[in-house]
């Protein structure tokens, strides 16, 4: 929304400062060797979920989705991760976006998430990595209902941090 809003209402401001997304920032830090994640930290199978706003909606509105950056980072943090299917532009929404987490419709929101949970189960992942606060909150909130209490839900930058030697 901030990105759309800046372009729509404050286009002149975009000439006065730069902008960057979280996955681009993490790629930059790793490429400049300001941080050096190591792959030895996690052995279990992980998966990555494309949030609507970073992927499909960004591609539709601004011509490019952030698909490659998170995957490049996953490759640098994990030996063992798989894609969800379908993914990228055709990904299935988790059900936590668009403000649904703030509505009183918890049962409906939980039911909405069944397709996402089935995908994660089918992938056999023990760790679920994403970029979006809504996706993170939704999957963490409903995983118990789907018998997946042990699913480790992580922000991508949290994964990166845990793969650093401090």
């Amino acid at each position, binding site marked *: 929304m*901030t990105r759309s809003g800046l372009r729509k209402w404050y286009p002149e401001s975009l000439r006065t400062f730069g*902008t960057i997304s979280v996955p681009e920032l993490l790629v930059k830090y790793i490429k400049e060797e300001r941080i050096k994640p190591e792959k030895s930290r996690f052995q279990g199978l992980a998966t990555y979920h494309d949030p609507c706003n970073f992927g499909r909606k960004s591609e539709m509105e601004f011509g490019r989705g952030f698909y490659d950056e998170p995957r490049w980072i996953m490759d640098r943090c994990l030996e063992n991760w798989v894609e969800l299917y379908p993914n990228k532009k055709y990904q299935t929404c988790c059900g936590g976006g668009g*403000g649904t987490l*703030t509505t009183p419709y918890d049962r409906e929101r939980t039911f909405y998430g069944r397709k996402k949970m089935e995908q994660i189960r089918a992938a056999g992942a023990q760790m679920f990595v994403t970029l979006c606060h809504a996706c993170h909150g939704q999957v963490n909130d409903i995983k118990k209902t789907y018998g997946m209490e042990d699913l480790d839900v992580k922000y991508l930058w949290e994964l990166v941090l845990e793969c*650093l030697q401090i």
Partner: protein
Amino acid sequence: MNKSSKIIDPGRSDRLRFAAWPHSPDDCLACGLCSSLCPASGIDGFDPRKVLRMVELGRIEELVEARWLWLCTMCSKCVVYCPMQINISDIVRSIRTLWDREKIPGDLHTGLVRALKTGNVNALSSQEFVSRMQAIADEIAAEPGFEGFTVPIDKEGANLLLTVHNKLVLRFPQDMKHLWKVLYLANEDWTITSENPEGSNWGYFNGDDPAAKILVGRIVDHMKNLKIKNLLWPE
């Protein structure tokens, strides 16, 4: 209410109201791809194709009362698959714009009002927000490898503005630490702000453009007033 008379009365279709919308609902082929793939289809009567037909038939009074309209996440998967490229998400959001603000379910409107009034959805005073942020920073500074960690607040000339997600402030403060630590280890020159610290924009969800514009404008003001070089996209 006699619903069938509404359905067959083409005079009810309010074309002027929808003239500014990106797509005419007339474009819909009624193929049902959107409804087939939407994870919310069938929940409490929600169905994207039905929404389009209701718009086409001018049944706006029902759409601005239908609680199922808020089950849609505007994820736009239906838009990707629509053979006529109808922007169904935009249409859902435009209907939400027509809702009486007081009838919007849950906290989407009330939270937005708090954000407009106090600078944040949680309605914390600037002083309380800052002290909470500093408490988190103190915890980080007590961990090995992060000695001397502080959270930069209102730092003029910083390289990067970080907005704060409202959910993390009160409910998940521990989750704030991961990114802060990465910024610290990467030696980033970053800052948050003591006033209007949030980036998420509930005006987007509930279709309130004037409010959304104010919230985006606050970020523009931070960038200008503090002469910050780069903005980290909030969402």
